[in-house]
């Protein structure tokens, strides 16, 4: 469904992605794991059009995504939950969700999606009129996830949803990711928390300093000695 082929992305002279090749099939949960500065966020921002690669291709079901601006990529069915959640702090919970549905045309669809998000995260319903900046970290993550779902994405890009959350909340978020996936949304999950990510993913890629160094099924990656040592804290 989504394919990256030999993608090179730069920040000025900094060569952040050095030829990334990866693919995600429809209905999968694929995780991209790697340490700080490996290029995970850069990969997601390249897919969503916020960054343009200098070389290589990004295609969604065969269609070139690079030629679209970031806001147009959303209309192609790609939604992203940014790193650090990025809720609009001064907008209310409802307004944040409405912004998530900016690409939708009809009011009915908006209302339907809001109901769906509220069923997924009842907590958000209680806080609907609250300004997002005053939500707790966990609630903000729920809001950022719900907001990304508002656009009816075909593929959801998630950048470290577990960051800074208590274990209970991480579990809740990951369960939600599985639920979302069950109803047909393909997921690309970027994580440093490899243990959690591999627990729910079908396949994984390991990223190191801008290069994919390993790819396999989640089962095999969990058993891989290098992954165990570097990302799972197993000696």
């Amino acid at each position, binding site marked *: 469904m989504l394919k990256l082929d030999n993608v090179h992305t730069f920040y000025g002279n900094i060569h952040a992605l050095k030829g990334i090749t990866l693919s995600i099939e429809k209905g999968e949960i694929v995780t991209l794991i790697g340490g700080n500065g490996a290029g995970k966020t850069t990969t997601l921002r390249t897919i969503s059009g916020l960054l343009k690669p200098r070389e290589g291709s990004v295609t969604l079901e065969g269609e070139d995504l690079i030629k679209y*601006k*970031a806001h147009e990529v959303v209309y192609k069915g790609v939604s992203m939950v940014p790193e650090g959640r990025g809720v609009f702090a001064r907008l209310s919970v409802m307004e944040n969700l409405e912004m998530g549905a*900016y690409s939708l045309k009809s009011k009915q669809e908006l209302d339907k999606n809001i109901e769906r998000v509220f069923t997924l995260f009842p907590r958000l319903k209680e806080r609907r009129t609250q300004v997002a*900046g005053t*939500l707790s970290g966990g609630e903000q993550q729920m809001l950022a996830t719900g907001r990304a779902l508002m656009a009816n994405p075909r593929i959801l890009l998630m950048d470290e949803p577990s960051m800074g959350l208590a274990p209970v909340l991480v579990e809740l978020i990951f369960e939600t990711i599985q639920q979302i996936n069950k109803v047909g949304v393909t997921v690309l999950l970027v994580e440093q928390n490899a243990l959690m990510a591999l627990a729910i993913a079908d396949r994984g890629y390991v990223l190191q300093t801008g290069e994919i160094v390993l790819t396999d099924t989640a089962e095999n990656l969990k058993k891989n000695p290098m992954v165990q040592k570097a990302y799972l804290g197993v000696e």
Partner: protein
Amino acid sequence: MRTSVGERLLDLAVSGVLWGFRILLVAAVLLGTIATIRAGKYTSEQWIDFVVFGISQGSIYALIALGYTMVYGILRMINFAHGDIFMTGAFGAYFLATWLNGIGFIDNHPILGLLIPILFAMIMAGGIAMLVERIAYRPLRGAPRLVPLISAIGASFFLEYAFRGFFGPGVYAYPPIKALEGEWNVLGVGILKVQVVVAVAAFIMMAILYFIVMFTKAGKAMRAVSESKDTAALMGIDVNRIIVSTFALGAAMAGAAGVLYSLIYRQVGFFMGFTPGIKAFTAAVLGGIGNIPGAMVGGLVLGVFESVGPSLFLEGLGIPRPYQLKDAIAFTMLVMILLFRPSGILGERITTKKA
């Protein structure tokens, strides 16, 4: 933690001087006010006049200030050409109104004779602002913050001297609207009709703008873009389009303000945007730049202080020509607010909680 004694003494001295300055200013205002009231030179009717004038003047500042504050909110940039955008609106309205006046339209339909030029001024100012954004600001997006500021000053000069080139350095008289002449008697006090109409029109415009920003999809997108352009783009929001709309909306308000200003002062000229422009900028800073209700409050506060101030506290201090110091009041307020409360009257109301 290695500040030397000398440095600490210097800090102390600076804050001492600042405090002294503050106390001196408050004392001067208080003493002047008491002296003026004791002298009893002005009747209460005159005071009401001052306040009404201040409100109508202030509501014009407020309308212009909205454009400064919205553009700042979204681009963190001071659009110094905004005062000249106000001027272009006034010019457009002047030509249309003069023509309408010539065919007798304004006398026969005073309300439409007022509204049509306002609408025209809004469209014209909005259009010019969109061009300015496209030509002078957009290519510099992402450049260091000083660069668009310089470009803004360039755009300001360009507009002023282009209009001077076309229409000369003189001033034109905005056609009179007979229905607005004279006074209304409110509870025994005569109030100039034109000032009431200007204030009411300005408040209606502000209400419309507030509604747009708070409750429409485009308005919410403006607020989203002002928080984060990247995240807004991830929502499918065309950031450039929202930025242009913000310029156009702020400029439309300034264009309308240009007509209202012309109704009071009856003079339209290429340089007319300069003083109201910096006054409105002061108002925006006063209310807290980036803050929309702040711009409205700041404009009104500035207008009323400026109008009441000379007779209320300057005259009491024995200053011979207090009215000459009207502008000094505005800029003293600007300096004071920058020194003591840079976030403005309303300040930042909601902080981003990093959880």
